[in-house]
């Protein structure tokens, strides 16, 4: 097969270059169609091959559809297969023509050869032309009863295909019931597996509007059925085993015997050659034993070895997927893997995505017993040819240093890095030394002497430069030439492109000034002048602030800029434990790869308005909506935002519990002591009332509702802030955090529907009722809006998702509110506003 012309290779469904060939093919096929000459099949085969190769490379050959179908009346099975392939690809676009093919496919469904019967049936079901479903029923029905299992297997999948083309036809023909009995009684494992896959899908789709399907779906998880599958699991092929194992994950065992029975049945699956089966089994084990702590630990021990073997035996891609899962387990139970650290040593030839994961593992499992070896190993990577890995490994050393109590040896290693005189190694190390000093100020002496020897000229990376400058400022008293280095840097202010570095320069100059005023005064003056003239807003503001604070009172300035050093006890974790748990629940899924729970990256619900507005397409966008497009594009960044927000949360926690303790502790203790005094005076009974009353006081302050009388049946009229403002990101975050407090369906009056030609009309209308739109989209008849509103005089938000179907004149709303109790009142306001839509 000669490769097609280069110009038409890519991507070109409509490129002109393929056209002449296609017309050529068309006429050749036409000539052959009626011919019965000997050897005609061979010429046909060549032509078919050509057609399919064009199709393969993306040239549109749908125009020869008729000729292909005419030529397909043949007994040659290869020709048939090629024709099936072609027809399957283009039938959707040519419903009229595909009627032609139905005839010969139906005939083939009755062929003697089961292979042809099967193939024909598969192609028939793959046509996916809605108005031809009636032709499917007969062949499918007989296919399900066929005495050959190959045909039955295909027929079962065919039922599922039919369901997706026309659900009602499939249900009316009672195919699900047939599948169920096949699933329970067929002798062929593949037929059973396909039945299971098809039924799971059909019933869970039906479950939303049919109680019976819901029951059937539940019944798939019944004990007898689960055991029916698990007992026979070895008869199934590996992929079907995955399917069954996933079903087993959802099964809720009745008691611990049940759990152990299942684990015994499945234990040998851990030694299956297929990694997917192993991982699915691991998931079953982990989920089953979640409530039994001891057994859960044993499960870790048991699954460790198979997983480690999978890592080292498969292709890099497989290793990557498994390592991602191992990473999750390692983070949950580092001590179990602590002795296996050598498995995570990087081999030279491994792709960097595997190496990166391995470095993370090494960081996670480092403890007192293995730190020395791990750090030694990591240090070897610092000289690695792969610069990215070298950087990562230095960061890993730093992370380990921050986790450990005994950092003596590690500090030496870090300082050795500085002596390697490679710019990126130095840069990474400086950042780490800075973090280390923030946590362990006692090392300042050793570090500073080495850091002082580094010439600032050799450091280009902003982060590293900022770190060095921070150290110069912080330890100005220990470094004799600190003011002069700073002065030098300040003199080159104009050449410094990074705002971060300039900010640090300002602060460092200030700190240095408080410690060694005479030497720094001039430099500080230059820095402040340059800072105030800086075009970067933050730099300008900070310089101005310093200047004014200095003017106001030098001592106050010192207290603000250079307070006594406080060791940071814990750096913010990148992920909250809640998120980690959620990922763990989604073991063996994409969530693990992305290290994010799936709701962040899959759920439309949580993507909220932004994703939706992205889907609008350009047609319905007017200026109002297009302003929402910007957040849509920021979606990528949003995932990070969530992580960031949890960071902040953790950070705050850390602050209040650790760093902030200096401030809060005395306050609390004085509080307690005053209560103690009261207690001493008035005895136990009185103290109880005091605490009680103080609680009440709290309640009145914050949560007055709990003591307030029960809400009156008619909700009070809610007043909304007409100028409420909420930025899209905050909206998204809230939407993700808050539970749905209300979900209702209204009908929209006909005038409203008539007025709703474009989303903007409703947006304007709702705005007049102080309900603001943050994003909207859709086209007739389906529109989707995200609204928000704010309670007057109180910063309480109401977020609403509203879906309007203009053909059925229904509006569905979901309300999420800061204050749950008033969401009904808000809904009433919303409904009133909506009902007035379209009224003159």
């Amino acid at each position, binding site marked *: 097969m000669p490769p097609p012309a280069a110009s038409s290779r890519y991507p070109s469904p409509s490129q002109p270059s393929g056209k002449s060939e296609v017309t050529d093919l068309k006429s050749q096929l036409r000539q052959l169609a009626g011919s019965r000459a000997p050897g005609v099949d061979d010429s046909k085969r060549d032509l078919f091959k050509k057609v399919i190769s064009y199709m393969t490379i993306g040239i549109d050959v749908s125009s020869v559809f008729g000729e292909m179908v005419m030529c397909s009346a043949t007994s040659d099975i290869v020709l048939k297969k090629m024709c099936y*392939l072609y027809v399957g690809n283009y039938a959707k676009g040519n419903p009229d023509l595909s009627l032609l093919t139905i005839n010969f496919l139906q005939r083939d469904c009755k062929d003697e050869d089961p292979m042809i019967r099967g193939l024909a049936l598969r192609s028939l079901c793959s046509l996916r032309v809605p108005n031809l479903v009636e032709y499917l029923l007969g062949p499918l029905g007989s296919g399900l009863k066929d005495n050959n*299992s190959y045909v039955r297997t295909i027929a079962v999948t065919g039922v599922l295909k039919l369901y997706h083309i026309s659900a009602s036809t499939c249900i009316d023909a009672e195919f699900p019931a047939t599948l169920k009995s096949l699933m329970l009684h067929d002798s062929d494992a593949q037929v059973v597996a396909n039945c299971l896959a098809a039924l799971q899908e059909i019933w*869970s789709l039906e479950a939303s509007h049919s109680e019976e399907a819901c029951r059937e779906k539940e019944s798939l998880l019944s004990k007898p059925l689960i055991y029916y599958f698990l007992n026979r699991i070895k008869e199934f092929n590996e992929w079907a085993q*995955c399917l069954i194992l996933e079903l087993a994950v959802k099964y809720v065992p009745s008691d611990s015997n049940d759990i152990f029975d299942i684990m015994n049945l499945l234990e040998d699956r851990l030694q*299956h050659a297929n990694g*997917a089966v192993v991982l699915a089994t691991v998931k079953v084990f982990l989920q089953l034993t979640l409530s039994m702590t001891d057994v859960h630990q044993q499960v870790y021990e048991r699954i460790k070895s198979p997983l480690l*073997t999978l890592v080292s035996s498969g292709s890099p891609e497989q290793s990557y997927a498994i390592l991602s899962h191992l990473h999750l387990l390692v983070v949950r139970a580092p001590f179990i893997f602590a002795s296996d650290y050598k498995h995570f040593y990087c081999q030279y030839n491994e792709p960097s995505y595997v190496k990166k994961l391995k470095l993370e593992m090494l960081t996670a499992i480092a403890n007192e017993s293995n730190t020395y070896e791990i750090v030694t190993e990591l240090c070897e990577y610092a000289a690695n040819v792969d610069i990215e890995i070298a950087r990562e490994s230095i960061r890993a050393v730093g992370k380990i240093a921050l986790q450990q109590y005994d950092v003596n040896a590690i500090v030496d290693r870090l300082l050795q890095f500085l002596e390697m005189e490679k710019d990126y190694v130095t840069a990474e190390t400086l950042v780490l030394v800075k973090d280390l000093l923030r946590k362990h100020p006692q090392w300042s002496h050793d570090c500073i002497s080495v850091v002082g020897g580094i010439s600032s000229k050799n450091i280009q990376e902003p982060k590293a430069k900022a770190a060095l400058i921070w150290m110069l400022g912080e330890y100005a008293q220990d470094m004799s030439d600190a003011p002069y280095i700073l002065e030098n840097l300040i003199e080159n202010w104009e050449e410094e492109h990074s705002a971060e570095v300039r900010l640090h320069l300002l602060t460092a100059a200030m700190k240095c000034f408080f410690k060694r005023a005479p030497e720094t005064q001039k430099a500080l003056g230059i820095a402040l002048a340059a800072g105030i003239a800086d075009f970067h807003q933050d730099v300008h503001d900070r310089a101005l602030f310093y200047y004014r604070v200095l003017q106001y009172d030098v001592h106050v300035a010192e207290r603000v800029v250079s307070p006594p050093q406080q060791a940071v006890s814990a750096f913010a974790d990148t992920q909250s434990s809640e998120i980690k748990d959620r990922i763990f629940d989604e073991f063996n899924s*994409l969530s693990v790869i992305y290290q994010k729970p799936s709701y962040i990256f899959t759920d439309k619900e949580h993507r909220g308005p932004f994703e939706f507005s992205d889907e609008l397409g350009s047609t319905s966008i007017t200026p109002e909506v297009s302003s929402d497009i910007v957040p849509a594009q920021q979606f990528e960044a949003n995932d990070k935002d969530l992580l960031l927000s949890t960071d902040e949360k953790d950070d705050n926690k850390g602050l209040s519990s650790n760093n902030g303790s200096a401030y809060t502790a005395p306050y609390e203790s004085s509080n307690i002591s005053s209560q103690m005094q009261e207690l001493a005076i008035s005895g136990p009974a009185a103290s109880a009332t005091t605490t009680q009353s103080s609680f009440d006081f709290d309640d009145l302050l914050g949560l007055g509702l709990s003591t307030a009388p029960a809400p009156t049946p008619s909700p009070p009229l809610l007043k909304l802030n007409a100028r409420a403002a909420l930025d899209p990101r905050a909206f998204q975050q809230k939407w993700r955090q808050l539970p749905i407090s209300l979900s209702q369906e209204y009908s929209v009056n006909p005038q409203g529907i008539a007025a709703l030609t474009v989303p903007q009309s409703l947006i304007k209308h709702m705005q007049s009722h102080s309900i603001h739109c943050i994003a909207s989209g859709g086209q007739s008849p389906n529109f989707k809006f995200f609204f928000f509103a704010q309670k007057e005089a109180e910063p309480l938000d109401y977020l609403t998702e509203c879906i309007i179907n203009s053909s059925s004149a229904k509006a569905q709303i979901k309300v999420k509110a800061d204050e749950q109790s008033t969401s009904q009142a808000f809904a009433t306001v919303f409904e009133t506003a909506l009902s007035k839509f379209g009224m003159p």
Partner: protein
Amino acid sequence: MKAQSEELFVCFHVNGEASGRRSNLTIRAEKRERERERESSTGHRCFSVYFSSPIPEVMLEKQLTGHRVDRSICAWFWDQADSFKSFPVIASPTHYLFQIVRDGITFLACTQVEMPPLMAIEFLCRVADVLSDYLGGLNEDLVKDNFIIVYELLDEMIDNGFPLTTEPNILREMIAPPNLVSKMLSVVTGNASNVSDTLPSGTGSCVPWRPTDPKYSSNEVYVDLVEEMDAIVNRDGELVKCEIYGQVQMSSQLAGFPDLTLSFANPSVLEDMRFHPCVRFRPWESHQILSFVPPDGQFKLMSYRVKKLKNTPLYVKPQITSDSGACRVSVLVGIRSDPGKTIESITLSFQLPHCVSSADLSSNHGTVTILSNKTCTWTIGRIPSDKTPCLSGTLALETGLERLHVYPTFKVGFKIMGIALSGLRIEKLDLKTIPPRLYKGFRAQTRAGEFDVRL
């Protein structure tokens, strides 16, 4: 909310280097509203499969479900930066892409619903294995010449996005592999199809990996122990890690329904095993005996791992000293612990650091080649009896550099026939009913896997 479950699409395409032709392509994200309920996404479905070759070009595409995946997804993929693109799992704006790369061909699968990532990757690996088995290798021309067969295979391997049969023995019965004979026949008779006439009986058999009744005039069964040694030697010459990953490969041509047992003399050295589905679990658990009905033809019976080996058969002693812009290199290679058989095909390769401007290396045994990408390979072959192979020479550093800061890692290759370094030995192979004219054969070999010597 309409739940949309199981869909997966697979595409095989070729690994993309930048090319001028693809400049003005933009991707339009699919505007389809696809909502999804996690609960209901029970199965897994690939939407389509693409194969593509080193220049960005789709060689082959197969849509697996009613939901068509636009080919523009490939264009999006090619437009990604290399560092991002190399990940096996990628989230595009519309789909999740799984990819594996084999011999320069990228196999790409797309899905929009949650599915176990390993399942998709494993499946793609199987596709690659089966194809290279069928076509006798994998490259662009082979796939293009035989794309009809590839389609046929895919048709049987995956239906509606869910993997069916990936067992090569079964597939071989459904679709005849392209071979010289059938090509000859088609020339001579003009009437040979590459579809076998019979239906795969294995699909109906309760032993899914075995055809019902293969017939052979002479019965043969061969067992190969193939071991790979992974090792890391650190800068100080210490053996940091040394383990063996081994496989028991079999080739069986036995008539009827043979029941085999294979036992080892010292099964206790094995650490963690994985078995072909044909191996019965209980006999292994209780007596460490492999009892099984083998597939027909070649297959991997089991794989295992042996940890904590004390020694590598070879030592490699590299030394690099650098001073005032020049480096002296010397590397010695010799036998550390004699395995009892000849160590063959010894090679040593390493990447010269970027800062090396030129290298002048020579050896007293074997040949040294330096490629333009600064990969240096020293082919030693066998260790001579009279001298220790030594590579020596100088490296010139780029101007301005005094000393070398980045050190190469040496990758060692070797092969030893006739011995399994883990010490594993096969005791015996028995057949329940002994067929006429039975030949049994055993072999063993060890080769270097990832054997790194760091400097």
